[in-house]
């Protein structure tokens, strides 16, 4: 608890320093801060609109995939293999959803915490916690960042991102097994 509070306070202070410090510094340096701010902010709307098609494409496909129950089906097939390796059937769906949807994975983690017999201090709860914090929503990151500049050919970005997720997953399992199994 202590760590989190100290960290949150530090984060808030950094935010304030940037928010106040940049305009103040600019003003001291003789920049027409208000005009410059508005000029830059104009871009915000265009960028958001530019990424819409990219986000719609990936999120619609992911939505269809999850809606069909393909995640659960995949989890059922993989569970007998991953279970003995230290990735139990309760956590597997979360691991599969994580690169596709951050909020989806967080919801599944909440389910693990709320399940009687599991909870946050169970092996599954601890593994899920480490997993959530050490992997990223790769598909979202790629569609937003590439979409903002109109990149459609990602080259090895997807492979590198998914490899990073897979490494995060593997490392989480190994660490969880050493500490809590």
């Amino acid at each position, binding site marked *: *608890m202590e760590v989190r509070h100290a960290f949150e306070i530090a984060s808030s202070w950094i935010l304030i320093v940037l928010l106040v410090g940049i305009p103040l510094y600019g003003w001291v340096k003789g*920049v027409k801060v208000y005009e410059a701010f508005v000029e830059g*902010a104009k871009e915000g709307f265009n960028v958001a609109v530019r990424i819409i098609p990219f986000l719609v*494409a990936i999120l619609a496909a992911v*939505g269809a995939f999850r*809606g069909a129950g393909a995640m659960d089906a995949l989890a059922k097939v993989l569970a007998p293999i991953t279970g003995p390796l230290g990735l139990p059937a309760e956590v597997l769906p979360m691991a599969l959803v994580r690169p596709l949807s951050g909020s989806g994975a967080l919801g599944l983690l909440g389910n693990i915490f709320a399940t009687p017999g599991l909870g946050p*201090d169970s092996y599954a709860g601890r593994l899920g916690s480490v997993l959530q914090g050490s992997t990223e929503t790769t598909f979202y990151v790629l569609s937003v960042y590439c979409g903002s500049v109109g990149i459609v050919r990602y*080259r090895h970005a997807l492979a590198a991102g998914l490899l990073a997720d897979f*490494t995060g997953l593997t490392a989480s399992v190994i660490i969880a097994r050493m500490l809590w199994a």
Partner: protein
Amino acid sequence: MNLVFVLLLVGAAIVGAVRGDVKAVGQGAFEGASQGVTLAIGLIGVMALWLGLMRVAEKAGLVEKLARAARPVFRPLFPTIPDGHPAISAMLLNIAANMMGLGNAATPFGIKAMEELEKLNPTPGTATNAQVLFLAINTASLQLVPTTVIALRASARSNDPAEVLLPTLLATVCALTVAILAAKLLERVWK
């Protein structure tokens, strides 16, 4: 990406058909589509705020200063970016915001970084090595303290909500190392 897109859709249709619930497939797609728009629209405010501040920082010479200060760290990773280029400061700000868990600021800085890197891109529409490496770094979760997870654990009455902190950091470092290595090694193969 073309293959992934088709695989997700075809996979959805097949599983939906086998399970006898084709309706859920369409519904999922529509929900995802509107979610995409909601997410993008929700970004407008923070995006405008941070891009406005970025412009002020640029005009004050702060962006260039930051880029020169960060040069020793970024040089080996991004050798093709000229010294003092605004792409470096945008990437630095994005990574710093990610580490501090300031997601609201991280995305606008990341987009700014992609835009600056795009100015150096001889092949618009195709990601450059520098862009892929930057994306790879961003797909490893960089947050130093996973505040959301710890808060969720605390609300679920964990005996020690923060015990996952160091394990998470360790797993993150592994993921980040592989992300950077993969981006660097695959760039020669994947033209």
